[in-house]
């Protein structure tokens, strides 16, 4: 778990730097090597590893628009994920998806940029597992701001009435972009939403990876044993803005300082030291993670950008007759009546 958490953190920090390349001076979101929005998850690693370390490749995870830490914990191909974020041809989605839309079917990982909309597909994965008498489970990640969405609430009900092997993991980072939880969401403990759906609910109040791991063990075990869904809320901290370039003028400085002090990686390192792991070993893990991140970024940046024509590929798996990747030739069919 420590290795994945450190990898995720170093990965986010590296992306933060890479993202700014070419965007200065005067921040331009569409310039630079990594285009588009970038939502980083530094500070949320405990929720990723604490849950995903119970999962197998055949278990499904749907992640939201802040997905990298969960992807790393689930074992998504780091090289190809990085290439995707850089918009390269060999990326997970051939450059079509980008960082909010990572798909790695080898480990049953998918994500969506639309709030809470990964929940229904997770229910579907769990439904498929149940119909096939498999003991695979599905995990839907969402933020605390997403628990007010109809798609989430409908998913809770469907998972509950069908007793589906799904775990909803709410990452409570206190902020829905600029909106503090207290102003837009009740109750304070989001896991209580489970009560209304006759479902198990649990909350881990600190971003302690071990505590998350223990709570998730119960939830995943319950699902795997055929005993139905769980709603698990985990307190995490969003160390950065909602997206890179977010001026965060809405956020009190004290909030950021408090978050920096409550670091889940430091907490786990301290725990490991107490249990006899020495600093050399922890440093070795950090060095290996740094090397892994560097390799992935270096490899990704060497990959080719897609050819423009590739924009037309993959609209369908089985393209209907008449749908081709060729645009009509200029002038083809231009004549539209007239006297001449």
């Amino acid at each position, binding site marked *: 778990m420590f290795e994945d958490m450190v990898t995720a953190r170093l990965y986010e920090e590296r992306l933060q730097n890479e993202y700014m390349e070419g965007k200065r001076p*005067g*921040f*331009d*979101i*569409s310039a630079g090597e990594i*285009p*588009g*929005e970038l939502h980083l998850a530094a500070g949320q690693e405990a929720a990723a590893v604490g849950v995903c370390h119970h999962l197998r490749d055949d278990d499904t995870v749907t992640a939201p628009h802040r997905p990298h830490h969960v992807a790393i914990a689930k074992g998504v191909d780091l090289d190809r994920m990085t290439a*995707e974020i850089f*918009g*390269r041809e060999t*990326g997970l*989605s051939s*450059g*079509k*998806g*980008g960082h*909010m*839309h990572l798909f790695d079917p080898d480990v049953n990982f998918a994500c*969506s*940029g*639309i*709030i*809470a*909309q990964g929940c229904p597909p997770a229910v579907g994965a769990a439904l498929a597992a149940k119909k096939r008498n498999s003991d695979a489970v599905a995990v839907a990640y969402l933020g605390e*701001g*997403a628990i*007010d*969405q*109809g*798609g989430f609430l409908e998913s809770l009900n469907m998972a509950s009435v069908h007793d589906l092997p799904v775990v909803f993991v709410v990452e409570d980072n206190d902020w*829905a*972009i*600029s*909106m503090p939880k207290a*102003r*837009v*969401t009740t109750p304070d403990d989001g896991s209580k939403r489970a009560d209304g759906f006759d479902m198990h609910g649990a909350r881990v109040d600190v971003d302690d990876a071990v505590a998350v791991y223990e709570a998730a063990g119960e939830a995943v075990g319950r699902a795997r044993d055929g005993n139905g869904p769980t709603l698990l809320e985990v307190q995490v901290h969003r160390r950065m803005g909602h997206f890179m*370039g977010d001026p965060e*003028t*809405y956020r009190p400085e004290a909030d950021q300082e408090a978050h920096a002090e409550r670091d889940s990686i430091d907490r786990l390192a301290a725990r490991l030291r107490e249990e006899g792991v020495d600093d050399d070993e922890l440093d070795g893990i950090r060095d290996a993670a740094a090397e892994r991140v560097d390799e992935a970024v270096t490899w990704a940046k060497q990959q080719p*950008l*897609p*050819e*423009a*024509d*590739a*924009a*037309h590929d993959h*609209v369908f798996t089985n393209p209907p007759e008449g749908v081709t990747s060729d*645009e009509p030739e*200029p*002038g083809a069919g*231009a*004549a*539209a*009546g*007239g*006297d*001449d």
Partner: protein
Amino acid sequence: MSSQEQQATGRTATMSDAMVEAVAHEMREDEEVFYMGEDVADYGGIFDSTTGLLDEFGRDRVMDVPISETAYIGAAVGAAQAGMRPIAELMFVDFAGVCFDQIYNQMAKNTYMSGGSVSVPMVLTTAVGGDYNDAAQHSQTLYGTFAHLPGMKVVVPSTAYDAKGLMHNAIRDDDPVVYMFHKRLMGIGWMPAPDGPKTPVPEEPYTIPFGEADVKREGDDVTVVTLGLHVHRAVEAAESLADEGGPDAEVIDLRTLTPLDRETVIESVADTGRLVVVDEDYRSFGVTGEIVASVAEHDPSALEAVERLAVPDVPIPYSRPLEDAINPDAAAIAEAIRTVAE
């Protein structure tokens, strides 16, 4: 106001400033106007659509809402039916799928289904457009989707001047209005705008009637019909062609899709005989087809040549070379103008 009179006003504003100015004026004039959406209070709107409104009007009238589009857009419908004049912001038009029933079954149809006994005087503001590599769930334009469904007026400003006048009109209108602003035109610090949308804007309120297209550039040889961001790309294309002695293109900015000013288009094509329609929405079943059909229905013989430029029926891809390939740029528009002029 003619373009000369616009120039005479002197003061320029970004499109976001112009929109906010109109909203603030209407909120001052009418206690029943209020604004709600995600991140519209402290943040001031992700695309600067509400900058400064919280300071002046407070949280009761500039409301951050839960991430519950069905609930708050439906609530706007209910408040509007109760006689208030809500403005509800859907952060990205791509999120409409989350709450579409409230938009196309409730907001748009309640007037009709009530036999006219209910009106829904609300504005749904929403950001559209790509050109910043954010992939298929945050880059759609969807003009055609909204204009296709009856019961709502659909507004697409391309300049600060138009944005302000159309917003005044939208808020005062007794029907639901969908006000679709292009992110790239807003003048946001982190998403540089082209020069075009920042125009002179009068400080006093004024309205621009719905259903009046604007000729952004006059020309004799080819009619280019477009809207939103692509007005600026079309003008750029027309100017570059004129500079090199090519065809003289007239650029018509539709400004509203519902109602649609077919007359201005038909009159222009009657003079030029050659039509290029440019749209950032998907090609099939969209604005380009509607415009061509409108002209053809009126007088098929008026059309000597037609080109359509739009997104070629693929979801908006992430990687830069892919998005550039599917989003018509000024060079592609110039090429289309040349083609129809041959």
